C-alpha cells in the first residue's frame, strides 16, 4: 500500500490546494468565466497570514489566532476581487481570462520586488516573529485547538484512550476539517437560488438578463465568494509551510495547476477538482524518487533481482538504465501526457464522468440504491 498511496504530508497539500482548485471551479465552472488570475487570491491569503504573523499588518499582533487570520485573509481577498472584478467583468470570454491573468501577474511582479514583505522578497518571507503555533479550532479555547505544521505542529497521544496521531496526521485532520467546512459552504451556495442564477449565466447570459437578473452583480458576487475561499486555501498553505514565495502563490502556473485539477476532476462538479489534484499528486509521487515518497522506482529497484536489472534490452541499454532513464524525475512528463488524454477521452473529468454514469450526485445515487428511489 505504501507504494501506491501518497504520504500523509502530501495529503495535507492535496487538501489545501484542492480547496483552491474548488474555489477556481466555483467561478470558472459555474459561471463559465475562466479566472486565469485566481492565484492572486491564493497569494493574497498566503502573504496576509505570513505578514500578519510577522507583525507587519497594522492592528494585528503576530500571535493573532490562526482561524481569525484565515477569515481576515478571506475578507482581504474579497476586497481585491471586487476591485479586479469591477474592471474585468466588463469583458467576457477569452478577454476576461486575459485581463484577470494580467492583474495577477502585476501582483506577482509587485510582490517579488516589495522589500516590505521581507529581506529577500524574491524568495518570499517566512514566519519569524510568531511564537504561537498555527492552531485550528475554537478561538480562545486552548483544549479545542490543535496546531498544524510540519515541525511545529501538535501530535496527539491517547485520544479516546487508544488513538495516536503524529504531527502530520494532526495537520491532515485539522486542514481537512477546514476544507470540508469550506466545501459545504460553497456547495450550499451553488444549490441556493443565487447558484441557480450562476448556472443560468453560464448557459446563456443574455437570457438570464432578459429574465431580469443584473448578471454583473451576480458574477461579481460569485467572484468575491470564490476569492474568499481561495485566500483561505492560501492561508492554510502559509500556516502549514510557515513560509511563502511568489512562485508558489501569485505565479500564473499556480492557477494552471488549479485548471489542471479542474479538468482532470471535472468542471462544475465543485468536489471534482480536489479529486483531480489528489489524482495528479498520487501519480506524481508514484513516479518520483525515493525520499520524495516515490513508489514505483524504489519498488522496481528493490524487487527486481540483480540479474534482471543487468539484462541488456537493446543496444547496450540494461533494464536498470532503462528504468532510470524513463522513470527518474519524469513525473511531470507523464502527467502532461495524461492531461492530454483526459482532455481527449474524459472531457467531463473523473467526478463528472462518474456522475453521468450513475445519473446524479454520487451520494444521492447511493442513497437511492439503498433505500429505493421513492422515499
Amino acid at each position, binding site marked *: 500500500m505504501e507504494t501506491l498511496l501518497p504520504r500523509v504530508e502530501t495529503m495535507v497539500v492535496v487538501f489545501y490546494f484542492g480547496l483552491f482548485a474548488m474555489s477556481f471551479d466555483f467561478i470558472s465552472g459555474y459561471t463559465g468565466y475562466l479566472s486565469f488570475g485566481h492565484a492572486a487570491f491564493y497569494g493574497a491569503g498566503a502573504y496576509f497570514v505570513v505578514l500578519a504573523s510577522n507583525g507587519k499588518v497594522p492592528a494585528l499582533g503576530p500571535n493573532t489566532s490562526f482561524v481569525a487570520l484565515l477569515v481576515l485573509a478571506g475578507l482581504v481577498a474579497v476586497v481585491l476581487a471586487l476591485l479586479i472584478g469591477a474592471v474585468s467583468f466588463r469583458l467576457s470570454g477569452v478577454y476576461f481570462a486575459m485581463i484577470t491573468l494580467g492583474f495577477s501577474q502585476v501582483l506577482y511582479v509587485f510582490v517579488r520586488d516589495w522589500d516590505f514583505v521581507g529581506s529577500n522578497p524574491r524568495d518570499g518571507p517566512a514566519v519569524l516573529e510568531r511564537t504561537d503555533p498555527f492552531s485550528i479550532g475554537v478561538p480562545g479555547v486552548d483544549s479545542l485547538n490543535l496546531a498544524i505544521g510540519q515541525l511545529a505542529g501538535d501530535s496527539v497521544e491517547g485520544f479516546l484512550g487508544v488513538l495516536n496521531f503524529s504531527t502530520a496526521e494532526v495537520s491532515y485532520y485539522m486542514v481537512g476539517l477546514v476544507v470540508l467546512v469550506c466545501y459545504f459552504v460553497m456547495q450550499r451556495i451553488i444549490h441556493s*437560488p443565487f447558484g*441557480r*442564477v450562476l*448556472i*443560468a449565466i*453560464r*448557459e*446563456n447570459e*443574455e*437570457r*438570464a*438578463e*432578459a*429574465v*431580469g*437578473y*443584473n*448578471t454583473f452583480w451576480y458574477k461579481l458576487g460569485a467572484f468575491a465568494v470564490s476569492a474568499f475561499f481561495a485566500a483561505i486555501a492560501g492561508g492554510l498553505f502559509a500556516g502549514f509551510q510557515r513560509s511563502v514565495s511568489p512562485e508558489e502563490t501569485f505565479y500564473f502556473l499556480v492557477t494552471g495547476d488549479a485548471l489542471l485539477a479542474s479538468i482532470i476532476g471535472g468542471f462544475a462538479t465543485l468536489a471534482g477538482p480536489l479529486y483531480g489534484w489528489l489524482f495528479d499528486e498520487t501519480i506524481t509521487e508514484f513516479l518520483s524518487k525515493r525520499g520524495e515518497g516515490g513508489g514505483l522506482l524504489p519498488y522496481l529497484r528493490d524487487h527486481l533481482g540483480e540479474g534482471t536489472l543487468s539484462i541488456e534490452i537493446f543496444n547496450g541499454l540494461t533494464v536498470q538504465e532503462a528504468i532510470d532513464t524513463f522513470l527518474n524525475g519524469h513525473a511531470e512528463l507523464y502527467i502532461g501526457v495524461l492531461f492530454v488524454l483526459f482532455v481527449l477521452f474524459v472531457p467531463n473529468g473523473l467526478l463528472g464522468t462518474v456522475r453521468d454514469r450513475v445519473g446524479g450526485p454520487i451520494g444521492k445515487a447511493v442513497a437511492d440504491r439503498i433505500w429505493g428511489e421513492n422515499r
Partner: protein
Amino acid sequence: MTLLEVEDAHTYYGESHILEGVSFEVEAGEVVALIGRNGVGKTTTLRTILQLTPPREGRVRYRGEDVTGRETHEIAEKGVGWIPEGRRIFSQLSVEENVRVAVPEGRNVESAVERAFETFPDLRDHRDRDAGNLSGGQQQMLALSRGLVGDNDLLLVDEPSEGLAPLIVERVAEALAAAADDTTLLLVEQNLPLALDLADRFYVLDNGQVVDEGNADETSADDERLRRYLSA
C-alpha cells in the same frame, strides 16, 4: 394606450446594417405579429427592444418612457418578457428551477410554480428532470410557462412553432391564445396561418424595414400582398 413604440430603429451587428429604420407600435392588450422571410430582421427587432443589441439610431419607448440604451435587465424588470427561439430553456437546470428563476424577486414563488404546472400539467410530471432532456414540444411549453410566471405586461415571443410537430404547434397556439388574455404579445412567426390566427394586427418586415401592415381578421394567408414578401 400605446405600450411599445419603436421609432426609426437602425441596428447593426458590427458593420452590417440589419434594421434600416423600423417603426411600429403595439397597443396594450393587443397581439401583434411580425412576419417576414428569414433574415429580414425579425429577431433583431426583438433584440433591439430588449437592448441586447441597442439601436445605433432611433428610439424604443415603453409605456411612453424612452428606454433606448438601458440595461437589458432593467427592461425585463419593467415587465418585458422574452421567449427566445432555438433552445429556449436553461438546459442544465431542472424543469422546476427553470420556472423558479423566472419569477421576479418579491413575488410568491410557490404559487407561480403552481400556476405554471396548472397551465402545463405535462411539466409537473417532469419537474425534477434536467430541462435539456425534455422533448422539443415540452421545452417550448416550459419556455412559455417561464414567460407567463414572469408577470410580464409585454411578452416577446420568437418563432414559437419552429421545429415542432403540427400537433404540438396546436397546443402551443392554445397556450399563447390563453396567455394573450392577460398580457400583450409581440409575436415573430413564419407560420403565416398561425400568426394571422393569433394576431389582431401584423407588420411585414423586408430588408430591415416595415413594408406593410394590416388587420389580421381582414387578411387571409393566401393574400397576394403577403405572399410577395414571404415566398422565397
